[in-house]
């Protein structure tokens, strides 16, 4: 097969047939902004923010859904492209409750808007995705100014009736990523586009709340939502990307071993996301992996060793507790031999703990009476 070439921004680039303009660009470190495009799913071309100028075409074409072709000449940052993107962004920002101060309007309309937004959200904080919003980033980058806002959302409050996910359509830009995440990535088929034309919105079957739908609260839709329309309830207003540290770890629940990104604020996990591109989960998590982290902060955690005396537990120091354990094990081994002690390790804890426990039983107590609940 002859080598296929495309020219992007005056660079001749080779590509494999079937690749889109966006894929060729990304492979060569040429940045094209996207909003609706979700890797690994079928491109919908919904937002058109990724448009580029193609020499032979009359109109600008979306890079995410246009296949690269041999001999194609592409410009990703021409004036025409820049203008088109700015127009799209203006439309999107003015379409809803984007109160993140991207506007440089200084009239009273802007103040009214903020007051309404606060009431709507029952919070004085700006949008919960402030600082983590693709639309906001692009609005800054393209210096978008808006002085006309749609306020239809004012009397359609956010959906708060489930414990995990806040759905706030005042900020939805109808990009469809959540629909793709739910249907093509996690395949839970809980949400889709509903209604027609201007009334289009994301709905569950019968337009019920998530709580009454097929939703299994995997939170994939939240992870992919580029704006503040889908937000983790537990992290809402608590988490901002600039006040948290990111720590990668492995999920503590089932044997899939998903890779998680812990977002830690002042030594406390405030949010968990899936690590994109990581093995084995490629960014995906389930309800337990995403929302099952806060048990470690329960008040009921054991904080000190306890010793039972006359049927009641009392607090003890490590020295006292460990000396007691050691003495008892020693005595029993002396009296009845090593076979009189036995231990069960934990299939939830880290490898190093299990190694250490079997070493204690084998090398110190001199018995192979060590097991764990693999068989159960």
């Amino acid at each position, binding site marked *: 097969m002859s080598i296929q070439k495309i020219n992007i921004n005056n660079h001749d680039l080779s590509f494999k047939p079937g690749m889109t303009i966006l894929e060729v660009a990304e492979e060569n470190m040429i940045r094209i902004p996207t909003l609706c495009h979700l890797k690994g799913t079928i491109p919908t071309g919904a937002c058109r923010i990724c448009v580029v100028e193609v020499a032979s075409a009359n109109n600008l074409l979306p890079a995410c859904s246009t296949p690269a072709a041999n001999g194609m000449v592409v410009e990703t940052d021409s004036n025409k492209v820049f203008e088109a993107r700015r127009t799209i962004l203006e439309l999107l920002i003015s379409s809803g409750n984007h109160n993140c101060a991207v506007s440089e309007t200084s009239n009273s309309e802007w103040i009214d808007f903020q007051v309404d937004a606060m009431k709507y959200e029952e919070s004085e904080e700006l949008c919960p995705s402030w600082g983590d919003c693709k639309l906001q980033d692009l609005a800054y980058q393209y210096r978008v100014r808006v002085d006309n806002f749609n306020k239809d959302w004012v009397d359609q409050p956010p959906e708060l009736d489930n414990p995990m996910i806040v759905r706030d359509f005042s900020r939805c830009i109808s990009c469809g990523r959540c629909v793709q995440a739910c249907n093509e990535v996690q395949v839970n088929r809980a949400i889709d586009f509903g209604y027609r034309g201007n009334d289009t919105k994301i709905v569950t079957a019968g337009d019920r709340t998530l709580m009454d739908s097929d939703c299994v609260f995997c939170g994939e839709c939240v992870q992919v939502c580029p704006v503040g329309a889908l937000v983790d309830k537990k992290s809402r207003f608590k988490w901002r990307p600039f006040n948290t540290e990111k720590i990668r770890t*492995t999920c503590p629940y*089932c*044997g899939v071993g998903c890779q998680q990104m812990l977002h830690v604020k002042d030594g406390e996990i405030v949010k968990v996301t899936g690590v994109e591109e990581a093995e084995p989960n490629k960014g995906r998590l389930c309800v337990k992996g995403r929302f099952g*982290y806060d048990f470690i902060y*329960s008040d009921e955690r*054991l*904080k000190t060793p306890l010793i039972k005396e006359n049927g009641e537990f009392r607090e003890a120091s490590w020295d006292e507790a460990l000396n007691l354990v050691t003495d008892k094990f020693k005595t029993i081994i002396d009296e009845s031999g090593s076979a009189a002690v036995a231990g069960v390790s934990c299939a939830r804890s880290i490898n190093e703990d299990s190694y250490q426990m079997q070493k204690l039983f084998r090398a110190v107590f001199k018995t192979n009476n*060590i097991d764990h609940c693999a*068989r159960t």
Partner: protein
Amino acid sequence: MTEAHPVAATYLKNAVQSGAKLILVDPRKHKLAEFADIHAPLLVGSDISFLNSLMYVLIDEDLYDKDFVKDHTEGFDELKVKVKEYPPEIAAKTCGIEPSMIYEIARELSKVKPVMCCYTLGITEHTCGRNNVVSIANLQMLLGNMGVESGGVNPLRGQNNVQGACDMGALPNVYPGYQPVINEKSVEKFEEFWGVGGLDKENGLMIPQMMDGLVDGKVRAFYIFGENLANTEPDIKKVEHELSSAEFLVVQDIFLNETTVFADVILPAAAWSENDGTFTNSERRVSRVRTASEAPGIAKPNWWIFREIAKRMGQKWSSNSAKEIWDNELSVLAPQFGGIKYSRIEKDGLQWPCPTVEHTGTKFLHKDGTFTKGRGTFLPVDWTPPAEVPDEEYPLVLSTGRRLYHYHTRTQTGRCEGLNELLPEETADISYADATDLGIDNGEMIYVSSRRGKVKVRANVTDEVPKGLVWMAFHFRENNANWLTNPAFDPITLTAEYKACAVRIDIIEGNL
């Protein structure tokens, strides 16, 4: 699978969406059935009868992989004789699947390659659990689906680190890396490395034997690390009797639970994310676990606690962090892990076997049909019924499992904001047919009882469950299925039969 291994299930569903065929063999018509080309609703505990029958068809119709069988296996003739006893027309009586469907499945299986077989505890938690696994391996060898990517026999491990706990030698018969404790050479190796003498040269006790030992006094001191045995073992009444018989019981955990009640000493441990370390998932991938917050109070990492006890008994262990334990001990002692070091798994983990630091890990086992022992051996097995089958007094079968929103005994998920709201209580899932026969409405409180106990629980009438089956989980204490389950064990693995016992349902008089 969508409930117990949700993210693994997403890949399966992705495959179906891109054209793969899915055959679901499960008594319950759960979520995956929507995605399946064929759903075979076999009777609980009849797996071997069904699998043998598939092999009958494959051999009878000459559909098996003759080259693979010839080049890579042994024992085919014995298998052939055994499965001859299971023509679909006969097997149908025990496994409850129409003969025509058995033929269809066998033919479908022979048409594509590779076929991946995944299973979970529905296979192992039976008195014939080991034979079930053997039978699946027989089938996959017969089809030539071993040693290829996306083929094979793939158990999805229940707990996050069951694989790891096995690998680390938290088993009575093997040292870390599956080196047998009865082998002179491995004993010497470990004695030398650990700098001790007199290691035990006999296999130790398995959990059920330990529990018996507590009652007859053979086991006087018992150390439980992190397992809530009083809720997770079958027949709670029996287990509680055993635990209360312990002369000295140490429990190391992060919360008080039903098991700590019986303890003499409770040691507070650091939890996930308060501790550096590694987990090994179902694909044998060793991945890092990292510290995000401090353990509460004076709780300590588990490895530290064990090290302190060793110190008090006169052994000074030099490794003083999870990293040192892994890099300096485990990976040196266990050849499969020789090439896995913390510095290599900063990002994605590595899949063992990974013998050297140049090795990139092993994606799938038995490559090109070479088994650990050279050839794969067919081990013909017979179907045996569960230890307890329905009768007049207890006419229904109880099977158990996990649900999506909780994990095990809920000591953790029960304490996460919101998860209790998503699943506030246990239910007994029953079929419309049984509900009608017994006069039970959806949502009504009922009694479910077995020879071992009785629980009060809300009925969930659903078409997921076939007639004759009751399905429950073990997430909630009061109506935990393990008040009912049968402590009957597989004779070799001593895995308990959580998946089948006989129960009855009674209406609560005057109940609304």
